[in-house]
């Protein structure tokens, strides 16, 4: 068995290798071109260095030649085995490794038509045959050019020496003749050929393409200097004659006729002549030097501009580029920008907003480090995905700010690795799982059913060898630290889509042998992959028309920050910071003040709502305005549990935070930042070392962290910085090892769960509006509300006994149980949950309202006085954690509307829902929305950004209701009991055209007995009546029975009878209803 597996593995490996080879072959032409280009650059470098040496007048001829031999080898194909010698009139200049061999290339140095020396290049080892022995034609040209350059140099030096002698003589004469001398020096310099001209001559011989580029650059340079001559010259080449019809005609349909080579040469000459006239010689030389330096970036530039360029090649090119000296200072800004944007598009995102920010933030060098941490198919062109791009950009922006901002100097970032988005494709192909790509087009129910199977299928697959090796590298890099595997899909990068939480993020404890660690890492990645095809994200994509987007899943792997105490590994604290506060607990807090959700241990409990526990909420800009002011509230709403990684079992565990803190009090760094001691109605900082920790009443408050450390200031500045640079509100995940704060993730806040912005609809008729407000609105949408519970403010205040007010609270509490969960809202006077002075609001507790979905507080002006509302403070955190929204309403204020009359006009259903509260019908109104509009529901759209909220009656959605009912039927029906093969939906409900009285048409493929058939029809009959009754309540329309059931048998299908044709005919469409399989 083991043998077989090993064999199989080997085969796979060879398969992969072959694939790789083919691919390499496939890109060969490109490779050659780039290779050639690089060779040219090498030559140019060589020229440049030689020119530089020659220009240094301080060096003697001999010194110069000794320097020159050293710079020649790099220009050859195999620099490491190249040696050079210059022989000049009996003197020898050679490289250190010089040795005469059989593989030689030489060229004579000629001055005054006499051979005065020779330049020789040898290869120390045998190389494959090229044009001239092992040497290339280009290398022959090069050596000749260098020899020529040397000849000119020596000639020049000799002339110079001669001139010097002449000058000395002249000086002497001058001195003799005093004032009668002629300034000969000027004439002399005109005669001299400038070194840039020497380079031009060389290029003309060896590399016309580079010459062309230099010419272009010079022409452009002159053009920018507004040189008139160059403008005239350019006009001559491409005449713009607006009157000439011919020209116009040509410019429309034909390209400009190509100038022949002769013309080109003459233009080139003219350009440089103009240059010579208008630019000083040394400036031209410097320009040339710069331009040639810039050419070093050409291979990278060209490479980056190509689409779909493989990962390995980019990595190699980046490395090669940075291996060169002073390369970053030389590269032109335009080239740099264009390389950077190309790389950003290649790895991060195409979205312009992102590229715009990223291109100024990132330096080219940063990519070197990023590429080093990427794992993916070597020949792949995948991206890093949204999450990774977000966190990389945030890291870069913060790091830049850290240099000048002392507050941020201690911010850290976890070690991160990236798996490219196309790895999932290579994984799928490698394991022949290609059929998963159609999963997204399946029926939601089927997706849900298939998901566990799919996950198992993924988990029993393997990764290609190259990826496994990449993962091995990752595991080794992380050493023994636990890691988190996060999804980083392409869609996650898009603004406005709340993909967070839809794809999985998984912890990997990273324990055991290396193979075990790789295995569990792979498992985690596969599970994240499988979540790409999960029902929730697919449903979400379907709703937003993103189904056809080619979603790929990148992976971000980060170390988990923290400390090991006992069997547990955990950060001291962690959480999420939002730059917009969507849960304002006081009117003094604005949305812009931001919000932090912070918990002890892993951040999981801060990111998700856990219901039975509370994170600490605080506004970084308003740290003094606590959510819970009173000591007892602060104790009540403090976190009691935390998530930790148990490194012995490898599981995430939820532990009693206080117990763990007590046990490992001395081992956890900065634990005193997190906890306070509750003592006689006060919360005191736990920093007293004399404290009896075992018996102290420990409360997690983060009091010390907020009051005495820079934490909130750091978070505030990070949020401010990122929001400013990225241009949208952001949320940031963080964790602290106690001593150091780490930033883990950053994304636009619009992607956060549950706070997707939806603007208030503007086309709602006045009579459909229930209320509208422009004050203290937070973002959130509540739809499909069926009931309104309204406590009439005037009536409530008029109650003459406290006891009656208590009774109203009891009614609310009972309604909370009776009304459909999360389908009703509460509207009432003043402060919901008021204690003590209960006249101010109904004295309910959280448990009395926990099934509602929104609570509205009404502040009606009385005698010029607007009562202060509670903002839900009595149980604010309960509301936040269970996602019950809060809205204050100020009727009578100009920016508020409250159409109270609607509520009075409707029938009060209180006594129908609850017995024995007839007396309270004037105080408590229970309104069914479908009474106002048959089948209608209430929608409350709250747009915090625009600070407006609207509640309006939405007309019936008959289709949704019917679809829901069909699912109920499918759940209730036992196919085996009634002999059902399958059920299909046809007609208006299937087509989506159902109206208020439409039947639901069902086709039942029946295989059972007559008795079963009777039973089945009776069963459907009962359902039909039940639905008709419900529909009547919804819409007011009478129907006999809402179900229209047609039975077809195998025989009908054979005969293709009329109903059966629905299933058999390719032109009719039906929707198969997934039934519960057996009971």
């Amino acid at each position, binding site marked *: 068995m083991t043998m077989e597996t090993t064999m199989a593995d080997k085969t796979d490996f060879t398969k992969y290798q072959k694939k790789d080879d083919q691919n390499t072959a496939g890109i060969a032409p490109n490779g050659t071109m780039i290779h050639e280009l690089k060779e040219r650059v090498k030559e140019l470098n060589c020229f440049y260095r030689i020119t530089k040496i020659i220009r240094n007048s301080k060096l003697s001829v001999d010194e110069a030649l000794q320097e020159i031999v050293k710079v020649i080898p790099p220009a050859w194909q195999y620099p490491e085995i190249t040696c050079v010698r210059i022989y000049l009139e009996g003197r020898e200049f050679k490289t250190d490794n010089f040795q005469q061999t059989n593989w030689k290339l030489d060229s004579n140095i000629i001055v005054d038509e006499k051979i005065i020396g020779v330049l020789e290049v040898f290869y120390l080892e045998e190389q494959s045959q090229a044009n001239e022995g092992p040497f290339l034609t280009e290398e022959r040209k090069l050596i000749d050019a260098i020899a020529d350059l040397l000849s000119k140099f020596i000639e020049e030096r000799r002339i110079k020496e001669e001139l010097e002698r002449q000058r000395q003589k002249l000086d002497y004469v001058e001195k003799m003749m005093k004032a009668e001398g002629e300034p000969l020096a000027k004439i002399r310099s005109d005669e001299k050929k400038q070194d840039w001209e020497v380079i031009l001559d060389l290029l003309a011989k060896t590399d016309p393409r580079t010459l062309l580029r230099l010419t272009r650059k010079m022409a452009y340079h002159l053009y920018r200097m507004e040189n008139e001559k160059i403008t005239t010259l350019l006009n001559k080449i491409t005449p713009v004659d607006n009157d000439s019809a011919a020209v116009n005609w040509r410019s429309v349909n034909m390209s400009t006729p190509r100038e022949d080579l002769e013309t080109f040469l003459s233009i080139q000459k003219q350009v440089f002549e103009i240059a010579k006239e208008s630019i000083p010689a040394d400036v031209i030389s410097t320009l040339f030097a710069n331009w040639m330096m810039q050419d070093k970036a050409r291979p990278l530039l060209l490479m980056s501009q190509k689409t779909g360029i493989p990962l390995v090649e980019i990595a190699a090119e980046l490395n090669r580029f940075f291996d060169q000296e002073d390369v970053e200072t030389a590269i032109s800004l335009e080239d740099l920008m264009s390389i950077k944007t190309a790389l950003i598009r290649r790895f991060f995102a195409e979205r312009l907003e992102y590229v715009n920010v990223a291109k100024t933030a990132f330096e080219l060098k940063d990519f070197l480090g990023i590429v080093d941490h990427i794992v993916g198919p070597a020949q792949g062109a995948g991206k890093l995905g949204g999450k990774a791009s977000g966190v990389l950009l945030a890291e870069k922006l913060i790091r830049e700010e850290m240099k000048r901002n002392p507050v941020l100097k201690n911010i850290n970032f976890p070690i991160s690795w990236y798996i490219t988005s196309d790895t999932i494709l290579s994984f799928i192909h490698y394991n022949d799982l290609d059929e998963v790509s159609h999963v997204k087009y399946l029926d939601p129910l089927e997706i849900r059913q298939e998901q566990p199977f799919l996950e198992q299928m993924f988990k029993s697959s393997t990764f290609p060898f190259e990826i496994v090796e990449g993962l091995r590298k990752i595991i080794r890099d992380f050493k023994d630290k636990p890691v988190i595997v996060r999804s980083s899909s392409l869609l996650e990068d898009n603004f406005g889509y709340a993909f967070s939480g839809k794809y999985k993020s998984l912890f990997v404890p990273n324990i055991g042998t290396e193979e075990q660690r790789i295995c569990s890492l792979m498992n985690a990645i596969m599970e994240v992959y499988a979540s790409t095809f999960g029902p929730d994200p697919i449903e979400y994509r379907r709703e937003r028309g993103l189904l056809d987007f080619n979603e790929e899943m990148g992976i971000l792997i980060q170390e988990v920050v923290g400390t090991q105490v006992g069997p547990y590994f955990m950060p001291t604290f962690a959480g999420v910071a939002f730059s917009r506060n969507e849960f304002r607990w006081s009117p003094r807090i604005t949305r812009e003040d931001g919000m932090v959700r912070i918990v002890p241990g892993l951040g999981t409990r801060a990111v998700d709502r856990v219901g039975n526990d509370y994170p600490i909420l605080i506004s970084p800009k308003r740290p003094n305005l606590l959510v819970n002011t009173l000591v007892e509230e602060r104790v009540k709403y403090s976190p009691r549990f935390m998530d930790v990684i148990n490194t012995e079992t490898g599981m995430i565990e939820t532990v009693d935070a206080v117990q763990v803190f007590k046990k490992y009090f001395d081992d956890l760094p900065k634990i005193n930042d997190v906890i306070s001691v509750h003592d006689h109605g006060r919360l005191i900082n736990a920093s007293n070392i004399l404290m009896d920790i075992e018996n102290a009443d420990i409360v997690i408050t983060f009091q010390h962290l907020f009051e005495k450390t820079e934490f909130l200031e750091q978070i505030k500045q990070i949020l401010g910085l990122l929001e400013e640079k990225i241009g949208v509100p952001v949320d940031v995940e963080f964790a602290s090892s106690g001593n150091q704060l780490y930033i883990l993730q950053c994304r636009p806040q619009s992607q956060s769960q549950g706070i997707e912005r939806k603007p208030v609809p503007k086309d709602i008729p006045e009579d459909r509006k229930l209320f509208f407000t422009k004050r203290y609105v937070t973002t959130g949408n509540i739809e499909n509300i069926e009931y309104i519970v309204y406590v009439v403010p005037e009536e409530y205040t008029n109650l003459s006994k406290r*006891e009656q007010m208590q009774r109203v609270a009891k009614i609310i509490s009972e309604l909370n149980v009776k009304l459909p969960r999360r389908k009703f809202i509460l509207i009432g006077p003043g402060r919901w949950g008021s204690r003590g002075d209960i006249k101010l609001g109904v004295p309910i507790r959280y448990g009395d309202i926990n099934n509602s979905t929104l609570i509205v507080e009404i502040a009606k002006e009385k005698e010029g006085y607007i009562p202060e509302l509670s903002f839900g403070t009595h149980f604010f955190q309960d509301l936040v954690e269970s996602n019950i929204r809060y809205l204050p309403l100020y009727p009578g204020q100009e920016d508020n509307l409250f159409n109270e009359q609607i509520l009075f006009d409707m029938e009060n259903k209180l006594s129908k829902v609850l017995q024995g509260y007839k007396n309270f019908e004037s105080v408590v109104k229970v309104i069914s929305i479908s009474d106002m509009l048959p089948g209608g529901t209430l929608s409350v759209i709250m747009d915090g950004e625009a600070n407006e909220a609207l509640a309006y009656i939405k007309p019936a959605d008959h289709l949704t209701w019917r679809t829901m009912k069909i699912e109920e039927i499918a759940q209730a029906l036992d196919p085996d009991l009634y002999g059902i093969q399958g059920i299909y939906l046809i007609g208006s409900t299937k087509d989506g055209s159902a109206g208020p009285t439409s039947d639901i048409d069902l086709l039942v493929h029946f295989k059972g007995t007559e008795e079963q058939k009777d039973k089945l029809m009776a069963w459907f009959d009962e359902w039909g009546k039940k639905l008709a009754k419900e529909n009547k309540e919804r819409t007011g329309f009478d129907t006999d029975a809402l179900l229209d059931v047609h039975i077809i048998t195998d025989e009908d299908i054979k005969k293709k009878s009329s109903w059966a044709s629905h299933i058999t005919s390719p032109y009719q469409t039906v929707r198969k209803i997934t039934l519960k399989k057996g009971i």
Partner: protein
Amino acid sequence: MQVKQDLKHEKGTTGVFRKEKEGFNPFKMAQQQFDRIADHLELDEQTRELLRFPLREYSFSIPIHMDDGSMKVFRGFRVQHNDARGPCKGGIRFHPQETQDTVRALSMWMTWKCSVADIPLGGGKGGIICDPHNLSEREQEKLCRGWVRQIARDIGPVRDVPAPDVMTSGQHMLWIMDEYETIMGGQYPGLITGKPVELGGSRGRTEATGYGLIYILRELLKEMKMDITKTTAALQGFGNVARYAAELFIQYGGTIVSVSCWDQTENSTYCYYKKTGINLEELVKITDRFGTIDKKQAEKLGYQVMPGDDWLTQDVDILIPAALEHSIIEENVQQIKPRVKVVICGANGPITPEAEDYLEKKGVVVIPDFLANAGGVVCSYFEQVQSNQNYYWTKEEVLGKLDNKMTDAFYKVWELSKRKKVRVSDAAYMIAISRVAEACKMRGWV
């Protein structure tokens, strides 16, 4: 800035508070109650006039620089209902929509409470109109100090003694004390009560209310010829009052068959029942700091878990409502088992008047809240005495003195109730009011 207001009967509004025109009015209710007792006592018109309204009402502005540099003016106030028997005593509340009549009613109630316990203090109440949820701690400190600066001359250890109340805590009291001492130039720990022990608080404070209740119950049972060791009781609640009441009751040999508590996680109340009597220690062990008993563990320990309202229907001798107001109402009072002989109120206002009428008819003795839970205010008085003397007692000393005070107070009320054949709560009111009225007369005020 400070306005000392004379009494303006009937019209008496200061404009500080929201006007109450209709509906439930706590002050009116307190006055009606007073009038009823005054009729019993046949009080003269002048005394009634004096006692129906507070003696003094102060209202003033407290300008504060907020954290953001802006300026905000808050309204502070103090109502001194009556100080004929001693310095006023009463809480300071932070409340965003405080109404004048609520504070008046509360201050009157304090006068009766101190009087029925026979401690030499009068009644007062005060506070600041604000919502501490919208204030930072620093701003709250400024408010407390600002409040003292305006009223320092009219409060003090021998004049009016504040204490923590709704939305104020020991911390607020310490700020107030510190500012007062700064103004007065001396140590005056007797200015306030509710201080931590290190800064002049009294020992035995946590136990005081619950123990006080049981001291009275002990004496009542003696009077009713019931052997406390043979009695059973059901408790509503499991907070401070209920827990210490249970502790002492069990110590005296009684049996508590059930306690009830609010379950944080399930958002509902449960009643924990054990026929043979609860073991307080084991229950406290499985109770979190919010007073929620661990349901599963309680079941393991052999407790029967019942709906929260079932505490009322237990077949016991004594019911002790010690958690919520309006727990015993017209609708459920008939469910009380005939065996029940005593209802002793630990919570404030747990029985509605209608329910009390019914119980009286059934011959059940009801010990009213302001007598039964007076242990708290007596201990505050002890704290003040200790602070003024700058000499502090042991816990045993405090609880011993508390026992004496409560026992005395009970017998005075019980004796009157027997003699005049009125229900205990009426007797308690009668004693309280007549003591105050007597003091006013002696001082020559009426």
